[in-house]
């Protein structure tokens, strides 16, 4: 009988041992599954950020803590869940530590690995604009008072052009008639971003006076009656002592042209001689020139007109 009891006791003991080994694992609650999911996500995120390299210690502990939490949550005797909760809390903290250490490390790596920012596109500066250039000239180069000349200019590489003496802004090239009263210097300023360029032309304004001397027919002899008129010439040369003077002889259209030219030359020479003899002008400062009938100032068809055309002009510059 005693043996039976002992046998029964041993059987129960053996059954208990077997029962403990074969006991069903505990099932995780939904909350524990959610917590585990969160922990797994953190670890996975850290793995993507090279956790093994950035935080090897934290990574190792996070894995071990996670596995321990899984183990503890499936132990048959670990109920109520309060006991399991501390293991999940520990695993969650380990996952947080891992993520906190991995994230800045990863970001720093990204900055290092990032390709250098593209160099700013350097737009080469436009080639420096060629310096502007300008030319200006006058035709005729000089004028007698009351007469006009034409300015002609051109520019290169200019964006604007301007001529002084009241003319103002002008085209990049062009012409303009000017009638200066006194000798005038015209300056054109051509401009572009590279700077200005200037060119100038001086237009001398010469003075002249006209003498109406009543020469005898086919004669160049100056008569006493003409001396008053010649005083005008003397006054003129005295007014411009430093200027070369030219005496221009003119005739009307009566007679052959060649003849008139020679006659006008003889008369101009006579006036020149008169002026030199008067002592008011040096011989090398005065010239004489016969223009014949070529430059009439009045109608040769009338008596009055022919009288006006028969004249001698005294002018500056010897031209």
């Amino acid at each position, binding site marked *: 009988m005693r*043996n039976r009891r*002992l046998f029964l006791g*041993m059987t129960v003991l053996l059954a208990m041992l077997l029962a403990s080994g074969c006991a069903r694992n505990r099932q995780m609650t939904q909350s524990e599954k959610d917590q585990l999911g969160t922990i797994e996500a953190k670890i996975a995120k850290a793995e993507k950020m090279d956790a*093994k390299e950035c935080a*090897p*210690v934290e*990574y*190792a*502990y996070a*894995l*071990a*803590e996670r*596995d*321990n939490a899984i*183990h503890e949550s499936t*132990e048959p005797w670990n109920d109520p869940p309060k006991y399991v909760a501390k293991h999940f809390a520990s695993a969650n903290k380990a996952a947080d530590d891992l993520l906190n250490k991995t994230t800045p490390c990863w970001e720093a790596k990204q900055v290092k690995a990032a390709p250098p920012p593209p160099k700013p596109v350097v737009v080469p500066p436009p080639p420096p604009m060629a310096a502007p250039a300008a030319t200006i000239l006058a035709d005729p180069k000089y004028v007698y008072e009351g007469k006009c000349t034409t300015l002609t200019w051109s520019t290169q590489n200019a964006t604007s052009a301007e001529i002084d003496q009241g003319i103002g802004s002008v085209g990049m090239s062009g012409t303009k008639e000017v009638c200066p009263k006194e000798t005038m210097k015209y300056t054109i300023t051509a401009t572009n971003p590279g700077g200005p360029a200037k060119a100038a032309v001086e237009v001398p304004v010469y003075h002249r006076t006209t003498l109406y001397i009543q020469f005898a027919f086919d004669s160049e002899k100056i008569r006493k009656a003409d001396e008053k008129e010649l005083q005008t010439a003397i006054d003129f040369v005295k007014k411009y002592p430093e200027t070369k003077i030219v005496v221009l002889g003119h005739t009307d259209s009566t007679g052959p042209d060649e003849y008139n030219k020679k006659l006008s030359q003889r008369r101009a020479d006579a006036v020149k001689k008169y002026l030199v003899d008067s002592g008011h002008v040096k011989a090398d400062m005065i010239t004489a020139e016969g223009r014949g009938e070529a430059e009439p100032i009045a109608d040769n068809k009338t008596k009055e007109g022919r009288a006006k055309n028969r004249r001698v002009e005294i002018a500056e510059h010897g031209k």
Partner: protein
Amino acid sequence: MKRPWLALCVIVLIVGLSAAGCSTANRIQAARSTMDQARAAGAVYKAPFEYKAAEAYLAQAVNQAENEGDNPAADAFAKEAQAYASKALEMSGGGAK
């Protein structure tokens, strides 16, 4: 010996339980030994993750064995520790030549 079968049962039970405990202890000891080799080979610097993982799992195994009395769990953790320690040793250039 009036009840030889009873004595036999007790002995078998004791031996069986002891064997289970010894097995776990041996596994833990093996993992620890491999870790020592790995550390000596410079695994702390050459394979920091593997070494630390071995260390962490070994700690879990010891905890399960000594505090929880859960030999199967301790075995499982010790196996993990052994695997990581072996990897650390390998990465550190140590181990059998």
